[in-house]
């Protein structure tokens, strides 16, 4: 169905004032890039949830990486966006300015080459990302073990999406009528990966792709389900998302990782929401090899309200720092740093 037709159908069926939330940084970005909010009816409110893995990285984790690098002279290998996220004293970029090596990679397998090509240096590979990315890092560690690489260590900052969704729904700060399911996390965990959340909360849930046509079509289906009053868990991204997801990726992920607590910026510590290294891969676990206690710094109040933005309670434009003290060149929090962050998207695309 063409976009025009879909929009007409949406207009004709959408009566209620509803809040729908997306949980994927790429959805946040694409919705802004194509100005999708402008063409939806006014009674439909699109909220952005904690869908950007970089944005939900706790300040302490950045501080920890910096402390590890300085104390043990480790080079850092990670994905691009993490490099600009501010910790309490600075970002990984500041490490680079102090002469420490920071290597940005596209594929985590690159880390193996970097380690092999520089046998006299030690590196910390920081694993960041949700279920879409974690299997890639898991496989990288399997290869590292196979190839007997001794100068590469790993820190998992990986988090799982369903627990975050549950936390937001439990907090009940906003009345959520429907959920836009992340297309690529779903490619890994399948439609079944959401069954638990769906059954527990009976909230209309539609998995959708990322092209504007796919998003609008998905939103149409979501609105239809909401208006009909019978909650459903629907997959409209069948071309990539199978019922059971990608079993190879899931198997690999759980070969290396086990579930454990994780510290989410804006949400606090959530049980079973993070991926930790299993004992069999302890040799790579930087927390075990290079133990480091960092004193929990007293909450430095820099007035950052990313937490509320991530929970969908505060619009970036309503944050007092937005566009003034907090800009992409001088971000006060991760929502403004990451290219997928809500504040960054609002800033870049004019929040219209």
């Amino acid at each position, binding site marked *: 169905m063409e976009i025009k037709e879909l929009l007409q159908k949406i207009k004709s069926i959408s009566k209620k004032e509803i809040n729908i939330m997306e949980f994927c940084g790429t959805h946040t970005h694409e919705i802004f890039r194509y100005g999708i909010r402008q063409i939806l009816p006014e009674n439909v409110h699109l909220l952005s949830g904690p869908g950007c893995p970089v944005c939900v990285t706790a300040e302490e984790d950045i501080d920890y990486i910096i402390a590890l690098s300085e104390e043990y002279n480790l080079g850092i290998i990670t994905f691009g966006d993490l490099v600009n996220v501010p910790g309490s004293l600075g970002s990984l970029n500041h490490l680079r300015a102090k002469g420490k090596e920071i290597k940005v990679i596209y594929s985590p397998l690159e880390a193996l080459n970097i380690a092999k090509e520089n046998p006299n240096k030690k590196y910390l590979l920081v694993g960041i990302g949700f279920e879409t990315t974690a299997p890639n890092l898991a496989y990288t560690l399997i290869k590292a073990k196979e190839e007997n690489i001794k100068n590469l260590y790993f820190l998992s900052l990986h988090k799982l999406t369903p627990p975050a969704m549950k936390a937001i729904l439990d907090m009940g700060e906003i009345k959520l009528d429907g959920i836009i399911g992340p297309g690529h996390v779903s490619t890994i965990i399948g439609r079944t990966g959401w069954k638990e959340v769906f059954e527990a909360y009976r909230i209309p849930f539609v998995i959708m792709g990322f092209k504007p046509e796919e998003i609008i079509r998905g939103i149409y289906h979501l609105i239809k389900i909401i208006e009909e009053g019978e909650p459903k868990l629907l997959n409209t991204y069948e071309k990539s998302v199978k019922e059971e997801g990608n079993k190879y990726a899931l198997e690999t992920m759980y070969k290396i990782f086990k579930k454990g607590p994780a510290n989410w910026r804006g949400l606090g510590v959530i049980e079973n929401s993070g991926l930790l290294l299993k004992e069999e891969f302890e040799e790579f676990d930087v927390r075990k090899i290079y133990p480091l206690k960092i004193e929990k710094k007293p909450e430095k109040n820099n007035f950052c309200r990313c937490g509320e933005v991530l929970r969908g309670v505060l619009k970036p434009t309503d944050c007092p720092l937005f566009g003034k003290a907090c800009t992409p060149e001088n971000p006060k929090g991760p929502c403004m740093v990451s290219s997928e962050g809500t504040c960054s998207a609002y800033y870049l695309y*004019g929040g219209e």
Partner: protein
Amino acid sequence: MEDMILLSHGSGGESTRKLIEEEILKYFGNELLNELYDSSIFETSGRLALTTDSFVISPIFFNGGDIGKLSIYGTINDLSVMGAKPLYLSVGFIIEEGLTLREFREILKSMKLASEECGVKIITGDTKVVEKGKGDKIFINTSGLGIIEEGMDWRGREIKEQDVVIINGGIGEHGLCIMLQRLGIKTDAEVKSDLAPLNSLTLPLLKISSGIKFMRDPTRGGVAGVLNEIAQKYNVEIEVNEESLPIKSWVKSASEILGIDPLYSANEGKVVIIADKKEEEKIMNFLKAHPLGKDAKVIGEVKGKGRRVYLRTRIGTRRILDPLKRDLLPRIC
């Protein structure tokens, strides 16, 4: 061990003299430079343009060029887009100890070919060498002097509603090519920087059309950056049409993989032109017939007074196209 540039080469003594006479003059030599006076003296008159640029790109050799070629074309382009015919260049090298002589010669050769192609002479220069770790292989500064002939100075022509925005070809190529190379992603010959000298394009164009109101080469910050500069400087609202943007398919794929919009990616062989709508056909005909303008497109228009740039998306909605506020990746120019 391969021959290398050492600290002594920059000390001003015998080694420096040898480097200049046996290497640099061999490639750049001309009657002015060969004298090796502290300043080179010449006479000229007319409206002159002077520009300078420093080049710190890494990697120094990339698909489609190298830092040497870039240092020549980059400065030529800064003159060309202002309507100035390039005359003379100065070249300053800051070399990190350890750069191989082979690499240095390759860069010199590249610069020689580039300057000959553009009809410019390098008439003065300087060479310094810094200790290992205090530089990154080589940094180059070039300054360029050009002369603006009658009718070629587009400054002062008012930008108005309905003026068109034109670009001479595909966007985002240089920036994305460098990023792919930096991330170690292997590419085909087709993936290369769009590095090219624009003087043979902009100067004749200014001669045939007096309706050109603004020209700039969209390097760092990309096309989005330049359009925002125009909007702010002249208080106009510009709307870009997403569907009309010329983008090569490898650029599109790379931009999706890396998450970087081609509108923000650097270009080194492109010029953004604002022109009177009445001149559109004439300008497009000229560009399409030129080797550097085959893929030229009208990509937008000036909507009237304002301060911002908007994008009309391919689904018909309109959104703001703000300038990029941070480095996509450091040192791509």
